[in-house]
């Protein structure tokens, strides 16, 4: 008990001053003496055998120091997922085949970029072009060009299957028989991309003592270290991935990238630092994009809207390698079964290879695509049954303490409150379906969507650990492997430590994201920073606090239970004059405990007692203890002349547990609303036969300030932060980009009666829906 001084407060970012003064160093800013420029040679073919690579002429270019191809590597594969069922399938440099336009074939290190690019032009590659396939449903047909052999465990006569997820519970056939109304619909989502402002960038420096130092723009250094070490044949202790700020990632900088490997290997060969920075155009063409999902959903309901059965099939276009495709089809199941009660469910997800650049998680990782499908259909069902969208959702929404079919418990689920509050806040009942604002050129509409997200579930490295070191003067140094990719990781961890130890934020120094000096962290792509790393920090700080209290108890001749910490002091409850400063206690510890300077150690893991993560293929197994829920409304305005849709206002009611830093949470919500409206109206990676047509900021239309939507938040607090106690506060980094997309789709229907089954909701689709274009 006692008031919280730091957690829950709008504390300013710790890294704010560095960033706002231009002092923050990102991977692109690393300057090392003698640095060479590295460039990558990319395949112009979507599918081809590599017959021969001749680098002799290229090596003659003055300034070129080294050229590498697959022959110079150990031939060790890597992959986003590396399990026995889904082994690594990618070489860092193409070995015998290229499978997408832009695939990495060779790399050059030279003294300047002119020499490097000149050398690239002179590398002669002999290809035997093979037939290619780009559409996943075509790639699945037997007889389609084989990109990789179909997964041995999928015996359905299909080609190019990278993986499959199947989940069945209950009896869907029986369920559908009981249903009063059944709908089946197909929804398609398009290819979108992350749009991080800082390009992919790596500087690698192989030192004379055999140490490889790497700075790379990433979402977590430990996975990079592991994969670099593996593919380079170095012990992990020889690879150090060092801290640099990250200019955004959103899922696009997680696993090993060819250029990271190449920078490292080129450095090993030249004994000089090598820097590879991808051009924006390379990023838009050859780097990872998000996953376009085809979702077919059949839902059976009772007259009163209760869901009795649901059958889904998803098809993911994973690109030329497995990437995270097998994860997104698993997650799509999760995003289906979590928010609503579905007593009978059959889910099949296919991840399909095509000759396209590899796809990777993008914020939401399947949730936006899936919730768009399910929520759109739910509104159509509601309309058919004469129910309103809120009613039907309240009927099916999960409640606190409910068990999920996989054995997880949703614990403190606030979804119903999210729906009730948001309905009230937005006057939804009166606005939805009303005639007001629906005549004339500009028509307004409102829609609702629901989503759920999970926090920090098991993924390599599976653990977050934090060390809290006391300094002589009672200030603290916090060591964490957590990577701040903009979400404020370092700040919230400091807030937690500040709260547990009652130390001002300014007296906490954060050392982060260095594989050598900081303990392991699960990485910033699994929505686990606040939950997993935060709890680790809490434990570490608590460890320090208990040591301080134990010392103080002896000195003050008091019971530890009667001691409180405040203002860097430990004092007896009710007798503030009977106190000792942290500085004094540290000195005392050293004196009385044979030199113990007081270092607190904490670690945490999701599903702490589960040996392993659930099966990606069968979904069996416990997944996480941390489910977050949200309901979002979108108020849109449709211009019936141009078809342009504007998101006027987004309201997010989120069951967030408790916010560690409300200002940071708001920032996350705003950013996700922006990404969702981009996904909805503006952004599309236009591809043709594996080639990107719009590889520039100009033509990949990410929202600008003019597209900014009014964003409001309703926090449904379902938990309190209690000092010394574990918490489950929910993720806020990915969950708000999904329901809003669905809400937008439903709002468009409310505004102009046009139901869209595919994203993006382009002006053309709107005008077609209105009958203005045939």
């Amino acid at each position: 008990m006692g008031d919280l001084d730091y957690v829950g407060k709008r504390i300013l970012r710790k890294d704010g001053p560095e960033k706002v003064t231009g002092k923050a160093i990102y991977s692109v800013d690393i300057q090392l003496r003698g640095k060479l420029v590295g460039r990558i040679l990319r395949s112009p073919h979507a599918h081809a055998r590599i017959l021969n690579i001749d680098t002799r002429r290229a090596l003659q270019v003055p300034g070129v120091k080294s050229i590498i191809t697959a022959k110079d590597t150990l031939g060790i594969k890597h992959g986003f997922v590396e399990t026995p069922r889904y082994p690594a399938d990618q070489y860092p440099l193409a070995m015998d085949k290229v499978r997408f336009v832009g695939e990495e074939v060779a790399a050059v290190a030279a003294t300047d970029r002119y020499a490097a690019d000149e050398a690239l032009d002179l590398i002669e590659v002999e290809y035997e072009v093979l037939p290619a396939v780009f559409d996943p449903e075509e790639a699945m047909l037997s007889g389609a060009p084989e990109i990789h052999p179909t997964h041995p465990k999928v015996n359905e006569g299909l080609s190019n299957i990278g993986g499959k997820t199947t989940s069945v519970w209950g009896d869907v056939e029986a369920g559908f028989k009981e249903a009063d109304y059944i709908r089946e619909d197909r929804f398609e989502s398009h290819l979108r991309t992350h749009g991080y402002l800082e390009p992919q960038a790596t500087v690698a420096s192989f030192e004379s003592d055999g140490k490889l130092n790497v700075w790379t723009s990433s979402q977590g250094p430990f996975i990079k270290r592991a994969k670099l070490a593996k593919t380079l044949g170095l012990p992990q202790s020889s690879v150090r991935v060092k801290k640099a700020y990250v200019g955004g990632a959103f899922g696009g900088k997680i696993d090993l990238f060819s250029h990271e490997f190449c920078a490292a290997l080129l450095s090993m060969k030249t004994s000089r630092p090598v820097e590879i920075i991808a051009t924006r155009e390379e990023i838009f063409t050859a780097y990872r994009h998000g996953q376009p999902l085809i979702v077919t959903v059949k839902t059976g309901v009772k007259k009163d809207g209760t869901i009795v059965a649901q059958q889904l099939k998803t098809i993911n276009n994973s690109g030329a390698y497995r990437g995270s495709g097998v994860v997104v089809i698993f997650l799509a199941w999760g995003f289906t079964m979590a928010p609503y009660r579905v007593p009978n469910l059959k889910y099949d997800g296919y991840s399909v290879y095509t000759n396209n650049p590899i796809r990777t998680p993008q914020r939401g990782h399947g949730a936006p695509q899936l919730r768009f499908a399910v929520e759109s259909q739910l509104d159509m069902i509601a309309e058919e049954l004469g129910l309103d969208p809120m009613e039907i959702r309240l009927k099916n929404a999960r409640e606190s303490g409910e068990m999920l079919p996989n054995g997880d418990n949703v614990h403190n689920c606030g979804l119903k409150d999210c729906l009730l509050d948001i309905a009230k806040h937005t006057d939804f009942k009166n606005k939805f379906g009303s005639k007001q604002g629906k005549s004339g050129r500009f028509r307004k509409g409102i829609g609702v969507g629901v989503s759920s997200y999970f926090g920090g579930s098991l993924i390599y490295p599976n653990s977050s650990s934090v060390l809290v070191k006391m300094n002589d003067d009672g200030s603290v140094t916090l060591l964490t492997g957590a990577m701040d990719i903009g979400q404020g990781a370092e700040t919230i961890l400091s807030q937690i430590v500040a709260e547990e130890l009652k130390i001002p934020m300014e007296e906490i120094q954060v050392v982060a994201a260095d594989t050598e000096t900081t303990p392991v962290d699960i990485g910033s792509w699994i929505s686990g920073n606040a939950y997993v790393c935060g709890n680790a920090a809490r434990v570490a700080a608590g460890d320090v606090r208990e040591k301080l209290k134990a010392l103080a108890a002896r000195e003050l001749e008091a019971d530890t239970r009667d001691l409180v910490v405040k203002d860097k002091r430990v004092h007896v409850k009710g007798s503030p004059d009977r106190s000792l400063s942290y500085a004094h206690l540290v000195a005392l510890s050293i004196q009385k405990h044979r030199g113990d300077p007081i270092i607190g150690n904490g670690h945490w893991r999701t599903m702490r007692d589960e040996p392993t993560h659930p099966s990606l293929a069968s979904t069996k197994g416990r997944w996480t203890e941390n489910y977050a829920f949200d309901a979002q409304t979108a108020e849109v305005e449709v211009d019936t002349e141009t078809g342009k849709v504007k998101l006027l206002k987004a309201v997010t009611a989120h069951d967030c547990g408790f916010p560690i830093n409300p200002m940071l949470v708001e920032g996350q919500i705003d950013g996700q609303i922006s990404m969702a409206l981009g996904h909805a109206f503006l952004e599309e990676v236009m591809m043709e036969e594996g080639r990107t047509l719009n590889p520039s900021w100009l033509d990949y239309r990410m929202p600008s300030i003019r597209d900014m939507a009014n964003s409001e938040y309703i926090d449904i607090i379902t938990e309190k932060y209690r000092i010394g106690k574990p918490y489950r506060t929910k993720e806020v980094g990915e969950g708000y980009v999904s329901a809003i997309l669905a809400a937008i789709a439903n709002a468009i229907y409310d505004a102009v009666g046009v139901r869209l089954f595919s994203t993006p909701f382009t002006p053309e689709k709107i005008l077609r829906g209105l009958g203005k274009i045939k």
Partner: protein
Amino acid sequence: MYLPKFMIERPESPEEAATLLKVRKESRLVAGGTELFPRMKYGLCSPEFIISLKGSKISRPRVTPEGMLILDAKMSLTAINSSPEIQEKAPLLAMAAGRVATREIRNMGTLGGNLCQETRCLYFNQKHTFQFREPCFKRGGEQCYFIPKGNKCWAVFMSDLAPALFCLDASINIVGSGGVRQIEIHKLYTHDPLKPISLKADEIVTKIIIPKNEGTSGSGFAKFTMRGGMEFAGVNIGVFVETEKDLHTCKGARITVGAISGWPQRAPEAETFLEGKDLTDDIITAASRKITENMKIVPHHGYTKGYLTECLKSQAKTALTDATNAIIGAT
């Protein structure tokens, strides 16, 4: 992305610039750099010499005794947008200049540069190191990626200022190594997307001359983009309308549409239709539909022809309504 190597010349006069353009083979003129430098970084051209007008003195807008407005082609787009003389005498141009790209680009880009920009196409405006390597027609090759069965180039001309100047009946002054000449603005365009600008290799645009406008008139400029700013137009349209003294009977209209083909297009059917008519909402709507008759509409940058047709009607309505309101004095 980085610039290829080149040498730079800084002429002190347009005549010297013209001579340098003639004498230095493989040379290109640059003023603001916002159009040429990105193209060079994308590897679309690699001149040996840059003839730079940066740093040359820029004359202020000048109104002649006869009431003509003379503008230095080196004026920045920001200067045009905020110039009191242009806002008063040629508001359509000021409006159009304010809609170009972003503030930073407007600070750097010039009037002349905007008028003489290259045509654009998704397949053209990107690097070709591993995509679309075989050159298309515009890159000196033998094919078009956009219309694979086609035998010509479909790149589009996306300037926002050109339609405005067409409507204003502007002329341009050109200095070449052979001397000076003046042409009507529409003669600047070849109607060939491969080489859209009619200037000879050694010619530069020095001045834009806007004739005096005697009567009661109003202008409107509409530009469709997916986002507010930043972008080239899906379609843009400039409208200049003159009325009788009653402020609502149309005496004449000049309408020019851009971005949907390789050159700016007038809309003579719509212009004729409006003559003598009362500028009501219904007439404006009817005129907007007429604009699409006989208008060459080329799909581009992800927009289809069907969409652009509808969108043009909408933009036309907006521009005509704005022009009409400007005459009445309504905001």
